[in-house]
């Protein structure tokens, strides 16, 4: 993975090398954005909306997004549901097991800032950006499948704007 990041630096030295790099950027980022496979990570009520978005009326498969059960085969975590303090190290473990490039969507109020459990709760982790770096936040309790769609499309825009040198 580290080797391919150095390729554009060599290609650009030749005349016309910039065109090759931008075409390669385009192809790679388009193909990544069109097939983001997400890890099944539904903890609470937002998982029902995630399942509804993946079912037949609002279909995730037409965006190319399929659920995978193992983090090794996924490149997106949609953290749907309340994350408690007991669950937080496990979420970090799953995030660390994913191969790069990897993305995180924080779905629902509980993952953004604690949601309805912000007041008077001893066990809820108030926001998952203390644990994993988040790319897209989707508010709602729970967000409708259309909101989740918009979040995924925004993530696709973000993925398409990524250059090969910036793959982290």
């Amino acid at each position, binding site marked *: 993975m580290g080797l391919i990041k150095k390729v554009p630096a060599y290609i650009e030295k030749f005349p016309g090398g910039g065109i090759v790099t931008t075409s390669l950027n385009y192809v790679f980022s388009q193909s990544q954005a069109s097939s983001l496979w997400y890890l099944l990570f539904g903890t609470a009520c937002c998982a029902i909306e995630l399942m509804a978005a993946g079912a037949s009326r609002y279909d995730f498969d037409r965006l190319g997004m399929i659920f995978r059960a193992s983090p090794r085969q996924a490149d997106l975590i949609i953290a749907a549901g309340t994350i408690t*303090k*007991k669950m937080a190290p496990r979420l970090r473990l799953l995030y660390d097991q994913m191969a790069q490039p990897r993305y995180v969507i924080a779905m629902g109020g509980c993952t953004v800032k604690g949601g309805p459990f*912000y*007041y*008077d*709760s*001893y*066990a809820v982790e*108030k926001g998952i950006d203390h644990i994993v770096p988040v790319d897209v936040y989707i508010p709602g309790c729970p967000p409708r499948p259309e909101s989740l769609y918009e979040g995924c499309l925004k993530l696709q825009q973000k993925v398409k704007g990524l250059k090969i040198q910036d793959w982290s």
Partner: protein
Amino acid sequence: MNRDQLIEYISGKFGDKIEPLKTGPVEPVFLLKDNSFLPEFCRAIKTDLTLQMDYLCNLAAVDTGEKFEIVYNVASVEKNIRFDFKLTMPFEGAEIDSVQDIWPAANWYEREMWELYGINIKNHATLTRFLLPDDWNQGNPMRKNWDAPDFIRMPEL
């Protein structure tokens, strides 16, 4: 048996150790005055042939501002009877006997009480932590006087 017959039967059987309270619109609520009488009382209501309370619906602790109350909801499946009874105890040295031998469902309820309120349970088989995280060192969260740096209370409106 209806509500008045039930109150009469229990008051008649256990005398002055139990006292019916005025609360409870549907099911009668009793106050057990002697905490050490609890195991015998539970055994008696389970084996009694007119009551046969073999189903422990709920066992919870309440932190009113001054003392703990422990509430038991029991029901009988055969005879269709439900009632509640409660015990009170002060904050210091709060402990109670386990009713696990009588109703095995009390196992998890008592572990939850021990973990979240700090009420000691005597004669319990497996008193281990299972609700809070493994490295929890911040006390008993459900008490009213518990506080932590990231515990935000609802502001007064």
